[in-house]
């Protein structure tokens, strides 16, 4: 505690330098947390609980909802396939098939079936308007927060004009970025009457999802619009492949952030100890041991990075919490999930980088002969 008092005061000697270092560390940590949040969001989306028993029937060789067009009447034949428990025809309408920070995704589906098949928990408003009114809609929690939508609001996008009946949460994070509307209304707005983008299939308990997928695809193998049926997790993996690539780049950026933290802190601490070589020598002459000097200098490095981490991680958490940023591709919105683990990981990495940055100047200061330090 006694050394800690000096650690804190020492950072106040060159306030501007310390503040700039802390801000630099904070900026780097903000970026690092953003990348980690995307990784966490992506991992969460791909590890959806019901992924194992859910299949997505898509148009073969199509990779974007705007080009996947299947006749709606396929539904009846798919529902009759052995092992299919339930089926949800879904028309997807979106503003952008490529990677986007402001993805708007409408899922048009029969309301009762959507409520039965999807894991939705109403957090505001009511279901009545959605079920009974043709322009009723439910919006996912993160989309509502991002767009500032509340029950009773109207939301218009292109030719789609809906009234928000309620806001829902879901254990499937990708659902929380979706606007759920009536199938017929969306088909009209998208000028795709009689067709859907995909069928969400629920496999019966005990049935082999792979075998069910093969049976479905075999039904339409020679049709004009052949299907490609995959487990939901595989479908998501395929749809988010671009994001995974971006994430790979993001991880390099995160590594660069850590190097920035290390360099900033090392530079500041190094300059700090160079300016007071004699003072550290006086401490040693007084009886302070090498370990005390080591702790003092390391403490300064760790405190700088801790302040930066607190500011950067805290700032990133606040921004992500209140803006509900998500990144979408091919109609799948991946929320940036900054949970406690992401925060702890960011802070721990910053502290480790700070300690590593302070190690060399700390060792050099601690091991410098006292007489040499006093003559500096």
């Amino acid at each position, binding site marked *: 505690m006694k050394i800690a008092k000096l650690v804190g005061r020492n950072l106040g000697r060159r306030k501007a330098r310390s503040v700039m270092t802390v801000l630099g560390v904070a900026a780097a940590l903000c970026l690092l947390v953003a990348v980690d949040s995307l990784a966490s969001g992506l991992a969460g989306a791909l590890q959806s609980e019901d992924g194992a028993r859910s299949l997505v029937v898509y148009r073969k060789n199509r990779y974007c909802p705007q080009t996947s067009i299947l006749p709606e009447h396929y539904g009846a034949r798919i529902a009759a396939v052995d092992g299919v428990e339930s089926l949800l025809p879904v028309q997807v309408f979106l503003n952008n098939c490529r990677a986007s920070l402001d993805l708007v995704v409408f899922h048009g589906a029969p309301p009762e079936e959507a409520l039965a098949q999807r894991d939705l928990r109403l957090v505001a408003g009511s279901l009545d308007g959605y079920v009974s009114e043709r322009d009723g809609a439910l919006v996912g929690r993160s989309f509502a927060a991002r767009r500032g939508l509340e029950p009773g609001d109207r939301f218009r996008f292109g030719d789609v004009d809906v009234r928000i009946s309620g806001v829902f949460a879901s254990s499937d994070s990708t659902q929380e970025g979706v606007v759920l509307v009536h199938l017929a209304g969306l088909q009209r707005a998208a000028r795709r009457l009689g067709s859907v983008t995909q069928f969400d299939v629920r496999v019966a308990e005990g049935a082999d999802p792979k075998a069910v997928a093969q049976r479905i695809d075999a039904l339409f193998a020679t049709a004009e619009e052949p299907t490609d049926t995959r487990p939901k997790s595989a479908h998501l993996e395929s749809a988010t492949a671009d994001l995974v690539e971006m994430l790979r780049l993001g991880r390099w950026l995160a590594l660069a952030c850590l190097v920035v933290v290390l360099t900033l802190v090392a530079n500041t601490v190094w300059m700090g100890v160079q300016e007071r070589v004699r003072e550290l020598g006086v*401490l040693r002459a007084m009886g*302070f041991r090498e370990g005390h000097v080591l702790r003092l200098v390391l403490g300064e490095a760790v405190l700088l990075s801790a302040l930066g981490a607190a500011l950067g991680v805290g700032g990133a958490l606040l921004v992500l919490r209140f803006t509900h940023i998500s990144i979408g591709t091919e109609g799948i919105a991946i929320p940036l999930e900054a949970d406690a683990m992401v925060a702890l990981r960011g802070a721990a990495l910053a502290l480790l980088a700070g300690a590593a940055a302070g190690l060399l100047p700390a060792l050099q200061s601690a091991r410098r002969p006292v007489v040499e330090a006093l003559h500096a």
Partner: protein
Amino acid sequence: MSLIELRGVTRRYTKGEHTVAPLVDVDLDIEAGEFFVLLGPSGSGKTTLLNLLAGIDRPDGGSVVVGGTDVGAGRSKDLARWRAAHVGYVFQRANLVPVLTAQENVEMPLWLTDLPAKERSRRAALALSAVGLLERAAHLPKQLSGGQEQRVAIARAIVADPELIVADEPTGSLDGESAEAVLRLLARLCTERGKTIVMVTHDQHAASYGTRLVRLEKGQLTAVEVAPR
């Protein structure tokens, strides 16, 4: 037995291609309670000798025994512990930590003890009181004059109640009045508290406060007669 015993002490430095030996086979005894003054020209090895006594440097040959401890041997951390308990060092400049108050600066050597905060604070206040600066306890070094800073440094040197106080030209950067105050303070510590003072100076007036004067020149010590003050 003397408080300080130097036997056959040699200290050499390498400067570039040359080896300098400011101390060659030096023998010296200093009794407890002495105000010992070391005189000599610049570069004669006065500070080197002081550093050896304070246990922050080691001889290349011979032994330096202070209060029964061979301070030329032992591990670095053991010597640091020994210094904290037995030596107070006063430098030419006060070398106070600029971000700590006078009280906190004085308290620093006590950080190395197990004393509770209250007791540390009490002892620091006593030390500041002894140098006449208790009312300046909350001031930062930049708010003190040069003489006051040096007195705070003396308070820092005595706060842990060491037997030995080494002072390396403690008045070298002070004006006449401040220098006089510092010298009187050191003399009082010697006469009233029984501290052993070893002071390096090249100022004859400062030297006149000593009870024994020795000149160091060309690696050898020679006694100097003390003129009565």
